[in-house]
């Protein structure tokens, strides 16, 4: 019976699930901040800033996330940058940072689309009312953008939850690595992976339904 094994090894399955949730939440928060910043670079009036934003997006979207994780995990300590003196804490933070950097590039593209979708007249009106560029962003362009990008960012969040499994490659005991450890101890591959599957579905299917619901609601509203 799949799932029963989860109660034999609660540390690895439920503990792993909790680590997966933590990396997802930290990664998503980071991705939103990075994504918004990079999107603002990409629509900035200064050309070098636009190029910088474009380079960021293209680099992170066109290289594998595992390579980026390995770089954060192995490369940075060699140049003296450590996430933490504790090894376990360090790989955990490297994983969360990798998630934020990689998915930030996708968030940036979505936010940029949202920013460009705001009617030009609104921006001109705000500027002619005497708002500075920063005030216009803060009170006019960004609030409208954030509402429009909720469903696509939800899709990125689903991808992010699934991609946290890659943290297992640098040794973070999240859900997939937990299942692999149980498999190697018990040789019960079917049960271990079926249980991990169920737990992943528990996270991604409700997220998917929520995104579909929001998509439909916002589609009607427009």
């Amino acid at each position, binding site marked *: 019976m799949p799932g029963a094994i989860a109660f034999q090894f609660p540390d690895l399955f439920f503990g792993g699930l909790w680590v997966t949730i933590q990396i997802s939440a930290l990664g998503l928060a980071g991705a939103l901040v990075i994504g918004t910043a990079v999107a603002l670079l990409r629509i900035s009036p200064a050309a070098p800033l636009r190029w910088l934003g474009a380079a960021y997006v293209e680099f992170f979207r066109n290289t594998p996330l595992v390579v980026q994780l390995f770089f954060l995990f192995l*490369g940075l300590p060699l140049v003296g940058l450590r996430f933490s003196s504790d090894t376990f804490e360090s790989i955990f933070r490297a994983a969360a940072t990798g998630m934020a950097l990689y998915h930030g590039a996708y968030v940036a593209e979505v936010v940029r689309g949202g920013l460009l979708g705001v009617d030009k007249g609104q921006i001109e009106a705000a500027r002619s009312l005497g708002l500075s560029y920063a005030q216009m962003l803060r009170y006019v362009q960004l609030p409208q953008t954030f509402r429009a990008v909720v469903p696509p960012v939800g899709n990125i969040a689903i991808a992010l939850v699934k991609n946290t499994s890659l943290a297992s490659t640098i040794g973070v005991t999240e859900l997939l690595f937990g299942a692999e450890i149980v498999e190697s101890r018990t040789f019960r591959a079917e049960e271990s992976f079926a249980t991990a599957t169920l737990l992943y579905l528990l996270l991604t299917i409700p997220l998917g339904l929520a995104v579909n619901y929001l998509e439909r609601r916002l589609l009607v509203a427009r």
Partner: protein
Amino acid sequence: MRPDTWGMFVDPAILRFFGQGLLETLSIAAASTLLSFPAGLLFALGRLSRRAWIRWPSIAYIEAIRALPVLLLIVYFGIKGSTLFRPLFGSDFDLPRFWAGVLGLSLYTSAVLAEIIRAGIVSLPGGQAEAARALGLSYAQSLRHVILPQALRLMVPAMMGQLTTVIKDTSLVGTIGVFELLRQGRTIYTQFFNPIEVLLFVSLVYFVVCFALSQGSRRLEVGRVPRIAQVKVQELQLRDQAA
């Protein structure tokens, strides 16, 4: 950074080693794409079928697989792939690691391709199918001569975009012991202790391949893709870009 560690990237033996890795990466991507396209087409048609006993299993397959991390599928086939095929090929059958990885990737990619193809079919004007049936074509004939040629053509850029995801995902197959590009790089930096240089070089290679593909897919002229298909493709590209 230690400058001497860059010298290796002009050594022909090292470059040949990386070249073998790239070749393996491209072979995995090609094999996975070739396997998952027909499967994806079948599941797309299955999901559009009027018969509930075909439609519901197709929906369940597509949605369940898309909700899973592709690494989980790859690791599972890496561990249990041989046992799964023993009833078919005899008790001493050993599934090569390469094919275990291809299987995991194809399972996932077929579900995504099914959704891309379905978006293409659904976005065609209903008059196309009706006209074909009214002219006396059977369902299979109308698919073969009217619907699929138009729908697949429309979806070529989206499918090429998915190919860049497949190429990035091949880097996961190294975890089950296939010597693709990243795995070759790992072998080298454990020898030479230069992960920064090797990982930057490996990223550059992935970047060149994937960037060229994604730019190419954006430039392709296939006609106007209807809004409904664009929305679906964007959703797929955000939700199903792994690795």
